[in-house]
């Protein structure tokens, strides 16, 4: 079903980016058929341009020939955002990895989209600054990918998600023209296009330069670990902390299975016999930390924490975080595959939804493990399975759907930070009316009338919702969705 790319397209693109950076052998298409989600589809062609102008020229070729194109960063997305579900051209932005400008007095940096999130912070940390959004994948994911998926991370609780830290960008529009949106100051004037483009998952164009806001690093930081014998108590502690008006910089929860897997993988120093741990971090001027940490400690103990410990050194702190940030990969130690959701619930419904997840797991005879941004109510249930077990795979889909339904039912949403991509677009009808979706479609086609930019993503195809267990014909044998 996927359109094969005309040889003319290939040679035009090779003319733009150079033959060395155009790929279309089977091996290469396969290497660009995945991201960190479970969805796969092959492109017809892959190119890796070296400049914004090259990106624009490639997009112009694609647009002229009406061939779909998909921007790709590091391919760590979990919603299939960078998967070329309709075939066409994958435009990998990994060579656009220069930090173009760092302006400390005005607290912004201009970067190319392929710059790795952590590299920006590393670049400015010696001057006492940082780039706040810190997805757990930050050592590999790109800022372009972050912008497109409006990435969050553990510290978004206090500092907000990517869109709160982007001032503007240069965008290659779906017709291949280049425009600047936003500016390196607060009031660029006109409609907030930066806000619109952030989180649009590459369906409105390709960001080729991004103006990131830099933040002053905090003077002091304190990291605490509270362990519990019951998941419910940990969830109650989260609700209590938020309700008390203390907003930590990060408030993460991990359950028993995750704790064990993480310990095996990185030895972070979590108690392996606990049912749940909370990883809590507060930041700010030195003087205020004692007061906040005392409040947090007593709330945690009130909810039955059996141990409450504060990292005593930077090394210990790093270790605690290493465990959290390696959790996603470590899950595979429990079972070969997982299906990860990232629904959100209002924070007061955390306890309720945790119970719901446990019940769903029991009902479908599945293992579901949790490691998530509890302070934001942003769940990450990992439903584990063995791809060889077809019945289990079927139950995985049912369970995932039930969990997301529960999130929506209590006033939450489908995705807090991973994006809709091709994974949840057919569920958009659960949270939006046909009218809402139609308005979104109108805006999208105003910007991409030809429908070439990352087609089929984000918005439902029009078929009514609920067809979760689709199986794209382009999936290779042995792969599964």
């Amino acid at each position, binding site marked *: 079903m996927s359109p094969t790319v005309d040889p003319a397209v290939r040679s035009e693109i090779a003319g733009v980016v150079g033959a060395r950076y155009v790929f279309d052998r089977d091996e290469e298409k396969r290497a660009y058929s995945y991201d960190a989600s479970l969805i796969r589809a092959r492109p017809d062609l892959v190119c890796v341009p070296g400049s914004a102008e090259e990106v624009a020229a490639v997009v112009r070729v694609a647009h002229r020939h009406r061939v779909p194109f998909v921007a790709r960063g590091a391919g760590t997305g979990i919603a299939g955002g960078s998967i070329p579900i309709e075939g066409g051209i994958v435009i990998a932005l990994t060579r656009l990895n220069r930090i173009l400008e760092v302006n400390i007095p005005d607290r912004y940096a201009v970067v190319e989209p392929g710059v790795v999130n952590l590299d920006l912070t590393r670049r400015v940390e010696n001057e*006492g600054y940082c780039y706040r959004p810190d997805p757990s994948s930050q050592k590999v994911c790109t800022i372009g990918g972050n912008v497109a998926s409006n990435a969050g991370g553990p510290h978004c609780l206090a500092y907000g998600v990517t869109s709160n830290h982007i001032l503007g960008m240069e965008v290659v529009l779906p017709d291949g023209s280049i425009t600047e949106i936003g500016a390196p100051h607060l009031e660029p004037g006109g409609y907030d296009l930066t806000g619109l483009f952030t989180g649009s998952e590459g369906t409105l164009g390709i960001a080729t330069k991004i103006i990131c806001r830099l933040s002053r690093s905090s003077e002091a930081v304190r990291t605490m670990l509270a362990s519990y014998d019951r998941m419910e108590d940990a969830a109650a502690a989260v609700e209590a902390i938020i309700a008390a008006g203390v907003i930590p910089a990060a408030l993460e929860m991990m359950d028993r299975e995750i704790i064990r897997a993480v310990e095996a993988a990185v030895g972070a120093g979590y108690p392996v016999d606990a049912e749940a741990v909370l990883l809590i971090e507060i930041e700010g001027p030195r*003087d205020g930390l004692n007061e906040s940490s005392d409040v947090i400690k007593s709330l945690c103990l009130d909810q039955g924490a059996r141990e409450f410990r504060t990292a005593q050194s930077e090394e210990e702190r790093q270790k605690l975080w290493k465990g959290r940030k390696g959790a996603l990969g470590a899950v595979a130690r429990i079972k070969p595959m997982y299906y990860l959701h990232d629904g959100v619930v209002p924070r007061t419904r955390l306890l309720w939804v945790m119970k719901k997840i446990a019940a769903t797991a029991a009902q479908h005879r599945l293992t579901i493990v949790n490691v998530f941004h509890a302070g934001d109510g942003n769940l990450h249930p990992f439903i584990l399975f063995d791809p060889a077990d077809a019945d289990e795979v079927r139950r995985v889909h049912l369970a995932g759907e039930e969990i997301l339904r529960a999130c929506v039912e209590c006033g939450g949403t489908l995705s807090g930070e991973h994006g809709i991509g091709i994974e949840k677009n057919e569920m958009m009808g659960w949270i939006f009316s046909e009218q809402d979706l139609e*308005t979104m479609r109108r805006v999208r086609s105003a910007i991409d009338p030809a429908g070439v930019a990352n087609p089929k993503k984000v918005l439902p195809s029009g078929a009514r919702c609920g067809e979760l267990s689709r199986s794209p014909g382009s999936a290779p044998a042995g792969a599964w969705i």
Partner: protein
Amino acid sequence: MNDPRVRPANLAEAAEAVGKIAARGLSLRPIGAGSRGWLGRPAESEAVLIETRDLRNLEHYEPGDLTVTVEAGMAFETLAGLLEAEGQWLPVNPARSGQSTLGGLLATGATGSIRSRYGSWRDLVLGMSVVLADGSLSRSGGRVVKNVSGYDLHKLHIGALGTLGLIGSVSLRVMPLPKEQRLVLASFKDRAVALEVAMATATSQLELAAVEVLDNLSPSIGLAEGTWMAVRIAGTEADCARSAREIQEASRMAGSRRHVTLAGTECLRALRDLNELPMEGTTICRISAPPSLAIQLLKQGSLGGDRRVICDIPGGIVHVLWNGDAEPSEIIKSVDGIRAGLGRSGSAILLDAPDGVRAGIDVWGPPPPSYPLMQSIKRALDPDRIWNRGRFIGDL
């Protein structure tokens, strides 16, 4: 004041009214409390006013979630009262906004001195319901604090001056009220010195709510003549005490002879006075630039000179004020000069100005480079240009 007007009682009625009016090819102009009606260019054609004052329901408020959903006709003050009762607040402080409706504040994008610390509307709005030109009601976002489901269309409406639709209801992120607040005021003989101290303060690791420099404004808030730095501190008792001490000390070292820290009710009163500076008849130009550029221009006197100036230091937002007796031609000349000084690196718009000024200058200044893209969005959501025709940038 006998423009035709409608005053819907709820969102459904509003949608219906818009549909009908639009079908007759008339232009529409949303109006909240009317407190910010001065913004923008004069309307291009006669319009039906659509009043939002009765759209003031509290749709949802769960303090434990730190989110609230309200209809857009609710007055800012009313919401603030509801939140305060639960020990919470909406951390924005647009000037003279007590009576203003949320919809009006959102549409004008009005924020205040604390935005560098707490963000502006785009950072606080979680979702919106909007009545579109065809009379449909359209929602985006949601009411949880983290959400990447679908396009953030609500962001388009913030600061759009109602040119894309009528904001019907809005979900917002709220915060616990700070435990303590302080206001440090320090006077300087030299504007340049004040600016330097303020910049150093703003880039320190103290977490301050606002750092401003006020020039030639002081008598109106009961301070002596000259240049003042005003630093607003919010946090725990310990944070506040230390920050105040360090800022006073730094001011003293830089030669400030008068400095004072206000706390408790005194602090709150002073903050209110600062926010409620009377502006009748005043022409206000709002400049936005990278902070170092704003400061450089202020030092050179090319922003304001001896005029009244309020500068949000970390935000790079400068308000330059002219009294009612200023010559329109003088004002126009100054604003042109400011725009020339900023070039493509900043923006300068006239928030309020007498007709004489408006007639001689585009209050919005030159459109941004992405103007054509904005036009496509306008065409998609309001093809017949029924909303606030002529008042916003270009033909948006």
